[in-house]
């Protein structure tokens, strides 16, 4: 049998209170108070990694090992964004880029960047280009054609080193190699770094300088 329902005032009072509470929540949802890096990674999704809190401490000239347990591993203070934690085979990139931040008193001389790297590719796959960007300027392109180790050895001009905020921001931009899977993230080439060093060029053997045309 159909029962006639009588509206109750106290229901409406509570609904009004909940509605006011919901408005406050809506304001909070629409106005997040977050840092730029958080917004870029989690909200806008314009960044492909979320930066670590890393000191960036780097004694210029010291070799850094990204392999757990090796000499120089304790200098893993420069891994900033887009590289996973160090393991027995080094650090692996994820997303569109991996960034290392090195803080040191920048000298007036040119610097030399050396590193050993691999990618998850092989000879039967198309060549993959990785851009090395220092302090926002494209320094060099490395082409990986096999799964073999590639040693990078590039000169960083003094003016470019000086452009940074008290050190170097070294960014490795990797290409996308597949459409997003079920996790909605694009599949990117994975770069693996085992060791890296930045030193004063004059203290090293002669190396080829990058042509100005390559610096865009």
């Amino acid at each position, binding site marked *: 049998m159909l029962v006639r329902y009588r509206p109750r005032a106290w229901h409406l009072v509570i*609904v009004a209170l909940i*509605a006011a509470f919901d408005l406050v929540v809506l304001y*909070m949802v629409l106005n997040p108070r977050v840092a730029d890096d958080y917004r870029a990674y*989690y909200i806008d999704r314009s960044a492909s990694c979320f930066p670590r809190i890393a000191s960036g401490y780097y004694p210029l000239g010291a070799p850094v090992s990204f392999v757990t347990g090796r000499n120089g591993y304790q200098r893993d203070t420069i891994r900033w964004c887009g590289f996973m934690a160090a393991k027995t085979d080094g650090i692996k990139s994820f997303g569109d880029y991996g960034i290392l931040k090195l803080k040191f008193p920048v000298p007036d001389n040119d610097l030399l960047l050396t590193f050993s790297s691999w990618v998850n590719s092989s000879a039967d796959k198309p060549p993959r280009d990785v851009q090395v960007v220092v302090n926002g300027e494209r320094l060099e392109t490395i082409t990986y054609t096999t799964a073999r180790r590639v040693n990078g050895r590039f000169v960083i001009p003094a003016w470019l080193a000086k452009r940074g905020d008290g050190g170097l921001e070294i960014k490795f931009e990797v290409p996308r190699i597949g459409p997003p899977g079920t996790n909605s993230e694009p599949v990117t080439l994975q770069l693996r770094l085992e060791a890296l060093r930045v030193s004063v060029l004059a203290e090293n053997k002669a190396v080829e300088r990058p042509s100005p045309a390559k610096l865009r």
Partner: protein
Amino acid sequence: MEETIAETRAAAKRWTWRIPSYVLLPFYLMLIGVALRYAVYARTTNHWGVVDYLRALCVYDCNAYERLALNGYEGRPSGFDKGDANNWAFFPLYSILVWAINRITGLSMLIGGSILTSLLTVWAAILAWPLFDGKFRAYFLFCFFLFLGPASYYFSTLYTEALFILLTVAGFVLLRQRDYVTAGVTGALMSATRSTGLLFAAAILIAAFQNHLKDGGSIRQFFRELWKRTDLLLAVALVPVGICCFAVYLYVHSGDALAFVHIQRAWGRAFADPFHNLWLALTMQFNAHNYSTISTDLAFALASIAGLALSAVMAWKGKWDWAIFSLFGVLLPLSTNTYSMIRFVVGLAPVLIMASLLVGRWRWLFYLMLPALLILDVLLLPVWTSRSYYLM
């Protein structure tokens, strides 16, 4: 006449001393399940410590809920390999209860939480009895699945499934009793337990509509008088209160009220077309020419299809409130990714109840299912403790 009344009173008195089987059954099955799994664990690992056993069961999200109860919500994300995860994705109600048990009894989070989960499941099973319309075989199967089935791990360690199923069952029983406001309060607790709790608001409206039709009302009459139904308005308004309280907390804690959504990026979750995700998961291994195994993606996809199919059966049976709740309870997590779909489907009480009602219709199938569930429970214990992605 006098004699009849006296007899009825005596019968009523006798009844009060008799504990009905739907109360004892879940409790006994829970004890048998715990003892069985402990025995299997001790036999296969040679470890006899009960705490070792509980620790072995506590894998994946269990650790997150335990840490949440211990330390509360974390600061800047830094977890996982990518350094972008923390525990903001985990809803608070369950861990608050574990924390309260710890404070009251002094038991560790692991032991107190495990006991709490088992007892919440027993409570859920007891409350679920009215939803079976007296079909004891189906009810037995439901209880058997919870305590001795292949998903029993979710209902015996620190996971939210037990609490969520308890609240879901309580909510649907209250809707059946037409107590919409209390059902709304239950919905608020659901939305403080899992995001899918929000879907209970739709179930309230649909149940009210169905109850109106059952009482002899018309469709037009329902919508004409809907504005006067302050109880329904309040019930629906109450449901999001749980998730809103969590959002306010996260805003104060992290500056982002939707941090529980945004942090899902660490788990590779982003909103997309759920059917596209389902198709990807279904075809991925075949596109890679893998025909010899069942990948986790395929297993999750099959679980999703089972959930969707059972939702369709609910609709066909006229249980639209269950159907809509379950349908979107599958589609919502599926729209972000297929990971953990087995657990998400098992965590939907109407899905389990409808599956039990279906299987319980045939005696032979019922008797076939019991040993099958039991064998799976025993065989999957080492799979679970070794952190298999399939069961995650």
